[in-house]
């Protein structure tokens, strides 16, 4: 058994320790957000956060996640209560087939935690490892900018409200 935290919950995984985290998440834990795309770290469809860093879960053995925090798109919100980035992607209708989007969102989440107000070049640079085949990039960029702007707006509002 490998112990790890998944989306804030203490979890035990029975898969062999060398099993890539992707298959543990999808097949053992029933978390389908991360997707198999290439198994080579070339497309980013499997991107999740390990502690605060985006990783290719297709290349990350379960063992490497032992005792660490794993975050997936399921941890950001639900269909009923989507998180900030998810709301922004919905507002911009930033998906076509949508297969790549959970990976995009997780990489964007890591970016915004590190750099809350990135410019367009910084967003493109951060998302460079992730491929989209439908050509939804322009909307993905808009959605990330929207989420950043909303967060900045709220932060400014809170500040203004502070006596």
């Amino acid at each position: 058994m490998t112990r790890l935290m998944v989306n804030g919950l203490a979890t035990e995984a029975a898969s062999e320790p060398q099993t890539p985290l992707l298959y543990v998440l999808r097949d053992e834990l029933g978390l389908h957000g991360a997707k198999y795309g290439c198994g080579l770290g070339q497309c980013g469809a499997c991107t999740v956060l390990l502690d605060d860093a985006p990783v290719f879960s297709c290349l990350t053995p379960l063992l490497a996640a032992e005792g660490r925090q794993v975050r997936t798109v399921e941890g950001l919100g639900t269909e009923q209560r989507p998180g900030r980035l998810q709301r922004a992607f919905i507002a911009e209708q930033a998906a076509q087939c949508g297969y790549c989007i959970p990976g995009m969102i997780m990489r964007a989440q890591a970016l915004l935690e590190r750099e809350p107000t990135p410019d367009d070049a910084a967003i493109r640079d951060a998302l460079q490892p992730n491929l989209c085949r439908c050509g939804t990039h322009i909307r993905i960029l808009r959605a990330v900018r929207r989420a950043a702007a909303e967060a900045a707006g709220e932060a400014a509002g809170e500040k203004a409200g502070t006596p």
Partner: protein
Amino acid sequence: MTAVGPSRRAVVAGGALLIGFRLAAPVRALAEGGEPLGDLARTPALDSWLRLDPDGQVTVLTGKVELGQGIRTALLQVAAEELDLPQAALTLVTADTARTPDEGFTSGSHSMQDSATAIRAAAAELRALLIAAASSSWQVPAAEIGTRDGRVIGPDGRAALYGELAGAIDLHRAARLPVPLKPPAAYTVVGRSWPRVDIPGKLTGAPSYVHDLRLPGMLHGRIVRPAAYGGRLLDVQTAPVMDLPGVIHVVRDGSFLGVLAAGEFQAIQAMRALEAAARWAPGRTLPAPAALDSFLRSAPAEDIVVLDRGGAALSGGRTFAAQYGRPFIAHGSIGPSCAVALVDGAEGGVTVWTHSQGVFPLRRALAELLRLPVARVRCIHMEGAGCYGQNGADDVAADAALLARAVPGRPVRLQWMREQEQAWEPFGPAMAASLRATLDADGRIVQWTHEVWSNTHTQRPGPAGVLLAGQSLERPFPLPPPRPIPMPEGGGDRNSIPLYAFPAVRVVYHFLPQMPLRVSALRTLGAQLNVFAIESFMDELAAAAGADPVAFRLVHLDDARAQAVVKLAAERFGWARTAPGSGRGFAFARYKNLAAYCAVAAQVRVDAASARIRVGRVVAAVDSGQAVNPDGLRNQIEGAIVQATSWTLFEQVAFTPEGIISRDWNSYPIARFDAVPEQVEVHVIDRPGAAFLGTGECGQGPASAAIANAVADAVGQRLRRLPLRLTL
């Protein structure tokens, strides 16, 4: 074979207002005549399309599938509009051979014409039946009864819920006509951008794809394929593989080889061991890649005269010629193809969950492959990653079914590996084109010749022989001879007829039956190369005539809707404010000469040191007839522009005589964020009441050509071969 030009009928009907009110003929006559009924003409029973439950819920049934193009949402909008029902009262069921009408393939930008048109007509009739039922129950003339929000409402304010009238209506009968359609001026849903119904689940990890289907007792399968086309399995030691953890079965039938395991990663490890244990006879040799263009132009061809109009001998003028080409292009789905199959233990029937674009044709193929009656095979569509044509979806469904046969009663999930998708999917064919035109003294085109060389653009199921598994069994199925797709839609000759009003035009399609690489339908079929060639050549001729490229196109266009998109794209781009040499490019096409109109203006920059082409701002204008969901339409065109940027700048299937060598995203690069256009704007010309024209494929050809034209404008170098490679 003589072919027709762009359908006059389609042009006239497309521009007409309130087409629906003209319906006054029986189903059969309309089916022969054209568009207004869509697939209702093919499947006239109303309950094939709509069900009304006593609780007022309406189920809409479509034989088309969601591919990420937003069809679920658009079809729901059409039904909601015509039925005056809120979204919550509607459920949509997409292609399932046991439940929905057979609408063939979801391809060719046909879903709105075929399915939305049918659903709209069936919904209008259901609404009329509800009104008739209330009329008879209330003894009030039907003309005085209306509908709103799931209720039938009488002149005195009396109302009945649709569900209350359900018992009085029999939908198990053929559609009767005329169907009174809602006038577009009264639309409150169609023409609005409903948010896509599938997006929230996809963004939050809800099981949304066949890849996410998890059935009780499910096993994971993987298959092993040879290094090259036609490789024959000589020998494989399976015993060591059977000893690996989790392995349940090794399946071999001729050269079809696969493995079943309890866990997915166990199946992958077993597949790797099986690969190492298998010995194959060498497969078929491919042409040398450097000789591709000469192969295309010299292989045995069936010559089809697509158009020969006004060919009288011309004297004088200046004649120009140019040759264009493109390589094989991969669909390159981000998610490799996947299917889940279950063989019924007692009956031996099979159910397959698949992201195929055509569940009914796939069912026929699987029945033949498995030697089962068609009725014992059920194919249920579930979404996959975007496919953009025929990727590995049908093949993996067959693979999964063959593996499932080894374990009756247990579902089998099989996903291809990246290298399998990349090497074995049927590619979009390589093509070549030669164009020639004559300019008169006034700088007008008086003669135009277009020759195009290509393999077939479809090898889809039905026959089992088109499936990879079908070709590799001990008792294989023969690959059926390839056939061209007839005009007016065409295959390799799709969009080979220029829409421009040239007095003399000759178009010849050299159809090539010999197929060195596996090919089938890729989004736009031949239209991308044909439009790239026509629109590049138009720019070359404009330059020779000393004319502005936009003005030159307008002079040669007599179709008002074509002129409108050209003018709008130029205006929004600010064409008149930009200078020649600034790296601007323009292109236009009407998809298939009978569907959506699209014009694209693009701006590029070329880095002098690296010769790298960077696409800056791109502006498109599109007329897709009645726009059901304008934002969905924009999303499709934005995607077309970005995908075409990738095709145009980067993509080509790499191969050697020994086989396909582009097997991942390093050897088959596509556009990443640093290569995506800086800005994309899409402007929609809505035509309320006009026929739905479909949108998924109208932008790729114009976008490819606009980029090439912009590169030529930027550096004075005309690139006629895709992907564009500059030498500075």
